[in-house]
């Protein structure tokens, strides 16, 4: 069953909250870059600049108590959207007490064990390690629902959040294989800014666009959207949320991607893969 982008016309996102959280995340980055890093209060700074809106939009769809996200180090907007307090978000990069690691781990290597809301699986500092735990969560959803007959898991999803460098890792392909062969409720949410660390995207996948290269992958529903356009960025998670409910719709959406510059002259896009 194909769906059209018109399905987004009735979108009722809480744009005020999305905007507020995006601004908060951007403000924290500015604070770290202009004050806390020069003062050596923050020793490792990882900016989420340019990632804010698409992440906050994505998070607005993660409302199921059994949803989970496997994220990476540019995920602060997701964390803030899913319940990380501002104080923890600011204290952790300064390695202060409390928060998600009590000063043990890098401030953007987060986790969120929320009892009654989406969980952020403990992140790791190594690129690509977020995929397979997320797909394990997705398989656990199907197991709880199908075998343990726990209806509270119906409609839950797992999300693997990545930059475009992550798609070259073993973990990405392992998780993609598992998700598509088992048809799991799994979203691969890729923020493609054209670089993996400093390495151009063409070194990560031929031509630099993994979405195009995966076009023939079975059981994979692919959406590309412009991460700089909120109306467009909302499309993919919207389709996914719908997709989870009947798990048969297939739609491939392509769109010419645009770039918006951030401080490090890298640009932002969002591409979303659905299985």
């Amino acid at each position, binding site marked *: 069953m194909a769906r059209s982008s018109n399905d987004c016309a009735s979108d009722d996102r809480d744009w005020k909250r999305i905007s507020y959280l995006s601004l908060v995340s951007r403000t924290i980055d500015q604070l770290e870059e202009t004050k806390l890093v020069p003062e050596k209060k923050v020793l490792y700074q990882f900016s989420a600049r340019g990632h804010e809106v698409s992440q906050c939009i994505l998070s607005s769809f993660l409302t199921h108590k059994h949803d989970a996200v496997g994220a990476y180090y540019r995920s602060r907007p997701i964390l803030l959207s899913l319940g990380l307090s501002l104080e923890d978000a600011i*204290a952790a990069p300064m390695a202060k007490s409390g928060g998600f690691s009590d000063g043990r781990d890098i401030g953007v290597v987060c986790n969120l064990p929320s009892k009654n809301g989406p969980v952020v699986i*403990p992140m790791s500092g190594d690129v690509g390690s977020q995929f397979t735990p997320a797909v394990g969560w997705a398989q656990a959803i199907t197991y709880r629902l199908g075998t343990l007959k726990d209806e509270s898991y119906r409609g839950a999803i797992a999300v693997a959040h990545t930059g475009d460098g992550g798609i070259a890792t073993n973990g990405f392909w392992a998780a993609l294989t598992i998700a598509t062969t088992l048809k799991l409720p799994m979203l691969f949410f890729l923020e493609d800014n054209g670089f993996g660390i400093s390495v151009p995207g063409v070194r990560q996948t031929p031509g630099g666009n993994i979405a195009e290269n995966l076009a023939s992958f079975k059981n994979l529903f692919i959406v590309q959207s412009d991460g700089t356009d909120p109306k467009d960025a909302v499309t993919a998670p919207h389709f996914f949320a719908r997709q989870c409910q009947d798990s048969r719709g297939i739609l491939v959406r392509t769109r010419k991607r645009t770039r918006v510059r951030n401080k490090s002259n890298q640009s932002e896009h969002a591409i979303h893969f659905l299985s």
Partner: protein
Amino acid sequence: MASQGLSDGGWSALEKQAHDDVAASLEKALARPEPKTATIHRHVYSETLPSGAPDLQQRGGLLTEGHKFPDATDTPNPEPQRINMITAIRRTLENELKINPKVLVFGEDVGPKGGVHAATLGLQETFGEARVFDTSLSEEGIIGRAVGMALSGLMPVAEIQFRKYADPATEQLNNCGTIRWRTNNRFAAPIVVRMPGGFFKCGDPWHSVSSEVLWAHAIGWQVCIPSNAEDAVGLLRAAMRSNNPTIFFEHRHMLDTPWARRPYPGDNYVLPMGKAKLHQEGTQLSCITWGAMVERCEEAATASGLSVDILDLRTIMPWDKEAVLASVKKTRRCLIVHEDGLTAGFGAEVAATVAAESFFNLDAPVQRVAVPDLPIPHNVALMEAVVPSVEVISQAMISLSEV
């Protein structure tokens, strides 16, 4: 957006609110104390509260959802017949699958084939494809998937077909072990990873790898290496009921060798982690060993004509330091025998501990017998030339007794 009040003026107000809230939170964050250095050792493993209850993580594992296990005992209730180790493992998996619907068993060839070593033979037929299943040939996928399942509250038992093939999963294994510590006990991922390895009728650099020391060195793992069927039951069940992740090493030679056969000790048999077994009591020297070397050390002790304390560690993380030190204090001589490579093998850790904590009880230097720093060769004669033999161990015992 405009309909939700986000006009130009509304946007400016939102920006101001964000700045004000961040500024207020910054003040609170700056006022937070530094973390306590005194607690940095905590939460590598599951801890116990003064009440005796576990100091539970918020997410992950069976206990966070209130799972109750049946009563357990470390006293065997042996059946009349002896079974081999592979049957012991299969029966333990079967029983835990039966009593705990949150147990899943998976890996390469684990499903209809029943595993290349037959550990899961018939289990898919009994428990269905959702609970016992084949995976894609990606060890990273097997272990990472297990981690995600454990974080969601299930008990995954992942099989790595041979120890060497855990290599692609190293990142996930290392990260799994440190989850509890990294998150300061907010999360834990108690999983069981079964991995056969070690020498067999012939060897090779791929299927005969031991390298158990890697998991002892990794943070947060329990590492079991049973030498016989009874211990395999007790340790595997302990792993499947544990709040910590566990590597369960299944030695290929011991899976069917007659020496390792024991009566099935019962469905409630659970061994503690870190408790060595005094396999044989003696007075002239202490032989510290584990896995397949226990059998060889027993034969070597007989061949040597010496009275040898043979201590089977059974688990190398945690390991029974007290039992080792007590034995060495008694015999005043210590020989460590293992199949893993000599350099930085786990024997080095035991030797260093004995030297540091029991130096004045020793009448001779601590000695080690292990595979030299080589891969295991395929040719049988070459393999036997590097794996510690009964003759080599026996000679080492005699030499040590003569110091």
